[in-house]
């Protein structure tokens, strides 16, 4: 009986997470279309779904589902087919540790944030797999750029998180939020402002969004590692991109913006909405960047990461540790 309860609960959790992740990603996709359009003096999606074009992401997804699932003749078929799944799996796995409220979390792992960072970097593996197996030189260059980017950006990202971990004294996502509640300030104000900036910058690189979208770089590499993909597999990459944005924004909100907690609101009830609002703000920020900035060059990105972000995040850790001991 207890085993049945476990499986039922697991099924419900999986379904709920799938709905939240895919729904959230579709909302972010819609926001990208609409916000980008308004920044560019356009109207954006207008007809799909009668009003405001709200059904455009769904319509796009349905359209992609109807397309032929092409696999290039020279491709390494199994790797080529697995890559989009790995990509989507990696970003979805992150949500296991994202707390939507003190109780509403799939699993509050003791290693929470450590696990999230590890799962998120699976996305880069997927890009490398896609680039390598496509038998296309543009894809290959895109994949290799993604790998180079991972090396450049995983480090400052982890180091920025270490600052939070040192200050909170825990790796568990829920306890990190609790620590911020106890402090009375979100970490972005209460000591980790530099860490927040580094984390968001590194997230942009990890998600390959402008100004760090070199692995895709439409004007150079056609579509980078995604060039040869079509139909459902392209949709999975596309969805993974925005699910990744969702995940990165959720983690950043949890680590730096107080997560589900907002003073005056009962976190048990309002937690999910508070978190989603914070995610919305961060997602808007990332959309804003995308429609504003040009793209850096790969070597400029590397020098930016190694010469600025890594030393800065190390200094941040040192400062946090000193303050932790002194205060």
């Amino acid at each position, binding site marked *: 009986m207890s085993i049945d309860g476990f499986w039922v609960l697991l099924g419900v959790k999986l379904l709920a997470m799938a709905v939240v992740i895919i729904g959230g990603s579709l909302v972010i996709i819609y926001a990208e279309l609409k916000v*980008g359009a308004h*920044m*560019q*003096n*356009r109207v954006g999606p207008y007809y799909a779904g009668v009003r405001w074009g709200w059904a455009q992401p769904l319509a796009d997804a349905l359209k992609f589902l109807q397309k032929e699932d092409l696999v290039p003749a020279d491709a*390494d078929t199994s790797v080529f087919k697995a890559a989009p799944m790995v990509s989507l799996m990696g970003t979805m796995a992150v949500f296991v540790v994202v707390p939507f409220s003190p109780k509403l979390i799939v699993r509050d792992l003791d290693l929470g944030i450590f696990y999230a960072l590890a799962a998120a970097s699976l996305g880069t593996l997927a890009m490398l797999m896609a680039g390598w197996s496509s038998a296309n*030189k*543009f894809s290959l*260059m895109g994949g290799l750029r993604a790998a180079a980017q991972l090396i450049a950006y995983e480090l400052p990202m982890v180091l920025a998180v270490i600052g939070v971990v040192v200050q909170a004294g825990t790796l568990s996502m829920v306890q990190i939020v609790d620590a911020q509640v106890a402090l009375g300030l979100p970490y972005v104000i209460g000591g980790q402002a530099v860490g927040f900036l580094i984390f968001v910058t590194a997230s942009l690189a990890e998600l390959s969004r*402008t*100004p760090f*979208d*070199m692995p895709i*770089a*439409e*004007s*150079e*590499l*056609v579509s980078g590692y995604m060039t040869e993909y079509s139909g459902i597999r392209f949709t999975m990459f596309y969805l993974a991109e925005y699910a990744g944005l969702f995940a990165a924004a959720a983690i950043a909100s949890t680590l730096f913006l107080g997560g589900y907690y907002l003073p005056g609101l009962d976190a048990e009830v309002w937690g999910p909405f508070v978190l989603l609002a914070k995610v919305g703000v961060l997602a808007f920020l990332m959309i804003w960047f995308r*429609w*504003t*900035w*040009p*793209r*850096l*060059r*790969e*070597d*400029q990105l590397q020098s930016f990461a190694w010469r600025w972000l890594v030393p800065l995040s190390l200094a941040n850790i040192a400062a946090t540790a000193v303050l932790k001991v002194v205060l």
Partner: protein
Amino acid sequence: MSGGGAGVLHSEARVSVELQTPEMTLNIGPQHPSTHGVLRLVAKVDGERIESVEPVVGYMHRGYEKLAEVRTYPQLTALLNRIDWTAGLANEVPFVVAAERLMGVEVPERAQYIRVVLTEMFRISAHLLFLSSYPLELGASTPLMYALREREHVLDLIEGVTGGRFHPNFNRIGGVKPAAGGGKGQRSVAQDLPRGFLEQTRRAMAKVFEVCDDMEALVRGNEIFQQRTKGVGIIPVEKALEYGVSGPNLRGSGVRFDLRKVEDYLPYDRFDFEVPIGENGDCFDRYVVRLEEIRQAVRIVTQAVDGIPAGPLRARVPRVIKVPRGECYVRAENPKGEMGYYLVSMGGRGPYRVKIRSASFSNISVLPWLLEGALVPDIIAILGSLDFVLGDVDR
């Protein structure tokens, strides 16, 4: 990837061999988002670094020089404005001027002013297209919309005068287009500028000025844009002259040479304008030069609109145009650079031979030299900054 004995043997055999990193041949184009059409670059790359590049042109060859030999003079302007389609009317002017010089026709003042106004409008339109597409190639998609929005005003004006947005076919030998339809009684009533054109032009020019300021703030001042363009794709003066680079690309390298100041194909000496130049000859300078050139073109248009004289639109020319025997070369400062027609006439109704010297062809001939040792992302930055049109390359 299949396993088995042969595969194992193969991989063992590879162990003793030193790791080889042969260069990769990367075929960029003819279908590629950033080659402005059907240019093909065969690049040998070592990782992201380019060892050599060979541009392959000719995918868009339409044989205009040959077509010119089998058409009459009035028919030809319809073809020639398709050479560089971003600068429609500017392609017609030097050809028509060449024919007029051989015929000894004096073009009325008003027609000349209209030619100046429209040529400069096409320059504005072409440069705005560059200002919009270049940031896009560097990954910023928004400036595109801002620049194209104002370009629309200019295109609307051009459409109001000529009836076409890109291919005006508006020049006639001896002036500009006379009455549309043109029954016998109407022959003297020339189709003039539309009502309110001068006022609308002033308004549109003010908007173009504004968008130049926007571009300055949004693109020129952007840190990332500067990082991507400053010191990238430097063309030294001597190399530029060696390869016959002309137009804004040449001026970007710091040579103050503008055919509008040197030649007299249109009465540019009556207008007060400057020739902007760059300092370093890099992509950034070429961008800035074009940005400044828009402002100068706006000045010219404004002055021309203010001082446009009344009078006929077309000189009296015979109904059947025959150009006397002779040859003549007329070159003009087109948006992309020096555009020249070498016209040889044997006295017939059409040219005997036309040699078209187009700017883009010479401008991209510098590519193999310029791209050697650059990075793959720089290919796009450099290609975009040279601002060529494939129709102008292949003709």
